[in-house]
């Protein structure tokens, strides 16, 4: 039986579990894990004050249960193993993680996979702003890994992305792919204002029903069926992410830009009339 942490606290003060990763607790007894110190606001307290701890940590898998919307930094900096969150979760899930897998069976707040460097995060519900983004001030954001969100997300997805794949099943807010240096962001639902603004390189795919208006600093280069999208779609399907059937056969308009920046990025917009 995997290690199970059932949230029992009722506090409006943020609970931060940074450092509580599968490798950090592997091999520890339940009583040792209960004494693991986490932050509640500016107070450092034992984990047992907030969670009922049970199970065995040996298999490198942690199950978080309950309404964890006030619990932040779950899986931050993890390098291996699996985390499953059954319920809503707070900010910074999988922040700076380098490996392993996180599944959120609920909704996640902002900063999912902030400056992620490897591994997989799959949010099966909705997520907040700044998914797979650089933290404020950073020259480089997410550098590797995959983030999948089945539902909708907020603004600034993939901010300053350097490498890796972010796929959003539902709608997204404004400024998707803002200041991207490279990497791939695909949005299968509606998209907000100013997509890919300031992008230097990389790919932003906007596959929702009504194409958004691109900034004037993007130039249309043609319409085609990119083969690489088929490969990415296959990869997404293999990870359990639903790719709409019409995306497989659609034509895609290619725009280059953002020409106020380096201008080597590409935006792919699904043509609504299939070939």
């Amino acid at each position: 039986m995997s290690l199970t942490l059932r949230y029992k606290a009722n506090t409006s003060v943020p609970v931060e579990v940074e450092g509580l990763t599968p490798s950090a607790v592997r091999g520890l007894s339940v009583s040792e894990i209960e004494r693991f110190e986490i932050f509640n606001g500016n107070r450092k307290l034992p984990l047992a004050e907030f969670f009922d701890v049970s199970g065995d940590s040996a298999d490198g898998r942690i199950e978080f249960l309950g309404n964890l919307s006030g619990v932040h930094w779950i899986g931050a900096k993890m390098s291996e193993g699996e985390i499953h969150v059954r319920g809503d979760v707070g900010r910074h899930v999988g922040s700076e993680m380098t490996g392993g897998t996180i599944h959120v069976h609920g909704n996640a707040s902002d900063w999912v996979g902030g400056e992620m460097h490897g591994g997989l995060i799959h949010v099966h519900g909705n997520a907040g702003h700044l998914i797979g983004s650089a933290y404020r001030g950073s020259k480089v954001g997410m550098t590797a890994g995959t983030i999948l969100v089945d539902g909708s997300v907020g603004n600034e997805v993939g901010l300053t992305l350097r490498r890796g794949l972010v796929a959003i099943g539902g709608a997204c807010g404004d400024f998707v792919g803002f200041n991207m240096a490279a990497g791939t962001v695909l949005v299968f639902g509606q998209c907000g204002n100013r997509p890919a603004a300031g992008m230097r390189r990389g790919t932003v795919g906007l596959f929702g029903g009504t194409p958004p208006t691109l900034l004037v600093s993007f130039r249309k280069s043609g319409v085609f069926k990119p083969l690489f999208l088929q490969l990415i779609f296959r990869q997404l399907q293999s990870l359990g992410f639903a790719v709409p059937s019409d995306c497989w056969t659609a034509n895609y308009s290619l725009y280059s830009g953002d020409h106020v920046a380096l201008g080597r990025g590409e935006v792919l917009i699904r043509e609504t009339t299939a070939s």
Partner: protein
Amino acid sequence: MSTAYFKIAGGTVYDPVHGVDGERRDIWIRDGKIVAAPSDPDVRPDRTLDAAGLVVMPGGIDMHCHIAGPKVNTARKMRPEEKRKADKVVRTSTTRSGTMGSVPSTFATGYKYAGMGYTTAFDAAIPPLAARHVHEEFEDTPCIDKGFFVLMGNNHYVMQSIHRKEPERLRSFIAWLLGAAKGYTPKLVNPGGVEVWKQLQGGNVHGLDENVAHFDVTPRQIIEQVSRAVDQLRLPHSVHIHANNLGMPGNWRTTLETMKALGDSRGHLSHIQFHSYGGGEADENTFNSKVVELAEYVDAHPNITVDVGQVLFGETTTMTADGPLGYYLSNSFGNKWFSSDTEMESGCGITPIEYKNTSLVHSLQWAIGLEWYLLAKDPWRVVMSTDHPNGGSFLAYPEIVQLLMDRTYREETLKHVHPAVLERSTLAGLTREYSLYEICIITRSGPARILGLANKGHLGPGADADITIYTPNDDKKVMFELPRVVIKSGVVIVDQGEVREPVNGKLLYVAPEWDVSIETDLAAWFEKYYSVRFRNYPIPLDYLHEPEEVACR
């Protein structure tokens, strides 16, 4: 006056001012000052610190750093990505929390200086308009005595007075401005060049005789006139100069011309390493060291002093009143950039950079800094600095001490820098190793003498009881990183690396006299051009924490 004595007993004392080179001595302290041993043999100290086997030196003095004011604060705010990953300074029962990185927060700055055995630091570039902010930040920078140099090299009133050939007005204005800001000495940063940058897109001056439009003055005139005025005012420190063309290949000629422009006047050339480059104009392929030529000139001219501005490899944040330089660095490194225009007074540029040992330019900068320490014959006129944080953090001083005292370590480090350093500098052939006595000079006694601080940099009667006690160690970096005890004004503030009692530290300022008749003209000038009313500009003495006037010479 208290009768309580504090005695540091039996330490191995280094006090170059009095020619004491590693002799076993007692030091007596009373009321925060070092005093002569009581003549009455029955007098017993209230407290004795057994320093037998330990090295005792005056507290360190950093005479050129950037630790307060708007540029420093902007740099702090500009680097959240660095702050997040840097060490944290955790709150204790006696100390406040803080952040590190290349630009530590205020309290952390004080604690870290003290933890390294430094008890005095001068911020090198303050626009007088921002002096109030600086004093407020200084109050939150504990453990060290502080002062600052006042930016005047591009001040409109200064340039106007020079243009009108009114040396008396210039002298009075300098005295008034120092008194208004409660500063220490005039600072010239790229004299004239910053004004041209503010006037023209991409503007700058590239030599001492280029004209600064509108004011119709040259950098040479600014250097000559201000240095002369400083000497006439008998300020404790000379004019403090960041010369034109910082960082540019071939700039050594400008530096030499700047030294010559001083004539017989005193002048301190700051971060001289950044001004000692040979090579063609803007051509990095011919970039090389010209320390031999410049050090020879400095050796022969006792009116000139320098601090080095050593570069250390790694990330840092550059901040300078040299606006065009900030723009140049931002373009070179492709990093975010902050620029500002301080009304009638100055400019400012801030950008993060990284010095890499794989880079020829950066490796040469590192080597040129070390050449200055090792080639200059008179250690009393060469001061250790990193131009914190421009060349590196002040926390790198122990590393520099080891590079200077341990030739084997230096040669080993040299193997890991760009190989062309061997041909383009003389560093590989320099065998000199510093003694503890010489280290004491370039980190304490020398800067105190250059700054005109009669009560600092020595351990004789009358000196401030700012004392650092080290545990001897063959690894000099370890020795200087973690002093055994640091004493500030007679109080033990650091014990084995831990801050015990973070005293506030004094504010060191000068108060030269000026001709009050200029105030009528000044008031009109302020009302016409400044965003601050004339009457609100000067900072009253009661606004300062623990002010101490340093007498003019």
